[in-house]
């Protein structure tokens, strides 16, 4: 009552002493500094990398990226064969992996019996728990030798097709690396597609079915168009992962720094060249590898930024409560699927 009659005095009565407020301040500013540290870390990281890579960029940046020769013994470093190798394997991963991942997501959300839904999702996500090096081990000792006769057959039959046909099929090659990458990006693409598909309003689906659409027509007309940007975002996240994937590709690509003329021939990627050559690299060679890392960093940055934007937009449009929940939800999935 007294406090109510004198508002100013009431405030003073309720206010904490500066000493009692200290822990609050400490916590708040401590946590803020911690969060700011993340930014400092990344910026610092970027500049350190640029600094170390500078000698390789000395002539000009484009010259490093588009020069088609990677020859450490001649001290000639052009990243073009590596960039092309990265693009070939990642594109293969997308072409093979995304349709399968989206189909698995469609099956899990729309077609499969309710009881099977969770076990199916868990099984697909288990693929993410297998470490990259184990994919490499399995790929080089099981998958690649088993596939080689089939690959040779395709190469012989399609010998008139440039890039695919002709030539001798080696055990490690672009195709096997791309195939294993496809398996590795399956879980994340599938998880995000499933999450986006779960947000399709039941009204839309029921309307389609009510108008006499078959299940497939309902999926094609109501589900897939609604999820398009989310699925594309998921695929881009998969692409980011495929570009940066190192160890499995290093084992499966054959480590030949020449421009990929042949799908079933040996090649190299940006990440693989670092894993393979950094141990013995000196001087300019080492700088060139740092430059390759920088290229990789920038490339994944763009791909991931674009992907996040798409996934967030897809989730936001579907009317979840605020952007936070949606982005958070997506990255939880990304975290779950991040085993690779």
């Amino acid at each position, binding site marked *: 009552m007294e406090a109510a009659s004198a508002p100013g005095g009431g405030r003073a009565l309720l206010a904490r002493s500066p000493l009692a407020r200290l*822990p*609050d301040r*400490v916590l*708040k500013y*401590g*946590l*803020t500094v*911690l*969060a700011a*540290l*993340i*930014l400092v*870390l990344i910026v610092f990281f970027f500049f350190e*990398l640029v600094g170390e890579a500078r000698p390789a960029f000395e002539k000009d940046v484009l010259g490093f990226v588009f020069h088609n020769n990677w020859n450490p013994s001649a001290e000639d470093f052009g990243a073009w064969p590596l960039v092309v190798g990265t693009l070939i394997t990642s594109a293969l991963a997308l072409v093979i992996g995304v349709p399968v*991942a989206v*189909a*698995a997501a*469609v*099956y899990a959300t729309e*077609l499969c019996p309710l009881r099977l839904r969770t076990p199916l999702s868990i099984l*697909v996500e*288990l*693929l993410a*728990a*297998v*470490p*990259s*090096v184990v994919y490499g081990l*399995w790929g080089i*000792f099981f998958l690649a030798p088993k596939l080689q006769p089939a690959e040779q057959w395709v190469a012989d039959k399609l010998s008139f097709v440039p890039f695919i046909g002709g030539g001798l099929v080696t055990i490690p090659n672009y195709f096997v690396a791309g195939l294993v990458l496809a398996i590795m990006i*399956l879980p994340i693409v599938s998880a995000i597609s499933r999450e986006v598909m779960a947000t399709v309003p039941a009204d839309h689906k029921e309307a389609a079915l009510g108008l*006499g659409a078959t299940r*497939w*027509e309902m999926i094609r007309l109501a589900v897939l168009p609604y999820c398009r940007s989310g699925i594309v975002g998921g695929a881009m996240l998969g692409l980011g992962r495929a570009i*940066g*994937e*190192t*160890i499995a590709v290093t*084992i499966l690509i054959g480590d030949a720094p020449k421009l990929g003329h042949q799908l079933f021939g040996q090649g190299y990627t940006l990440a693989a060249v*670092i*894993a393979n050559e*950094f*141990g013995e690299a000196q001087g300019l060679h080492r700088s060139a590898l*740092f430059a390759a*890392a920088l290229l*990789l960093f920038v490339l*994944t940055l763009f*791909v*991931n*930024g674009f992907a*996040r934007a798409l996934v967030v937009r897809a989730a936001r449009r579907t009317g979840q409560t*605020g952007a*936070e929940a949606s982005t*958070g939800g997506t*990255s*939880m999935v990304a*975290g*779950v699927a*991040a*085993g690779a």
Partner: protein
Amino acid sequence: MSTPAPTADLSARFGLTAGRRRKDKFARGVILAATILALVPLVLIIYYLLKKGLGAWSSSFFTTDPTGNTFFKNSDIGGIKSAILGTIEMVALASLISIPIGVGVALWLVEYGRNSWFARVVRFFVDVLTGVPSIVFGLFIYIVLIIGTGSSFAGYKGSLALSLLMLPVVIRSAEVILNLVPAGLRESALALGAPRWKVIMKIVLPTALPGMVTGVLLAVARAAGETAPLLFTAGSPKTTTYNLSEFMNSLPVQIYNDVNSPSTEVVNRAWGAALTLVTMILILNLIARLISRRSRLA
């Protein structure tokens, strides 16, 4: 009134032509086939891991260090003791570093930053970290701690590289869970006069804890399987060490080195190590899933 022929079913009466029905059947078949196709690699990998890996397992496999005697046939190539211990030590230290920092940043995002521009920038940068290839983290630590200090590889440097990798996963998963803590809980505590730090420490964190364990365990599982960040930070010695400032072996790096060996025995050792690693990671995943099922949040 023309009654439909007994063979014509409902769908025919409602105009579902045979073509559309066939298309539906076909599309469903393709989707089912693709789903099965997605599961084939999992089955094959697990089958080969068990087939090759169990053959390599023996009691001495886990209790002896690997040796370099790979040149002669039938020489003793040793086991994977140093690799198992190295992985456990480095991942433990990486967790000790990344979990407090990660949970702290997540707390700041949820409790203080919320939707301010600065919080949005931090979120964006955390997402950037998620996308950085793991080998680039290794090179970063190499630049700062090996070129920068002029010293050589060490276990703790590997741990730091792994903790960079774990950080975004911990932050994002902890943020999701902290967001799920009911605002009513915070408001009641604040209304009762509790200071903010007490609300965070005594109400928000304990409520969110079981849910956060899931995300943390998944981050740990991810770090345990990583090879690339350790290649140029921790090295690959043969002997067991408990000193984190020495070179330190790890399961993924040992597998990676053994894969390139021409000796079948060494490759078998890699299969045994791979089975060990996958078992460890699957156990972590399993615990994470069980805990997340128990948690009231999420």
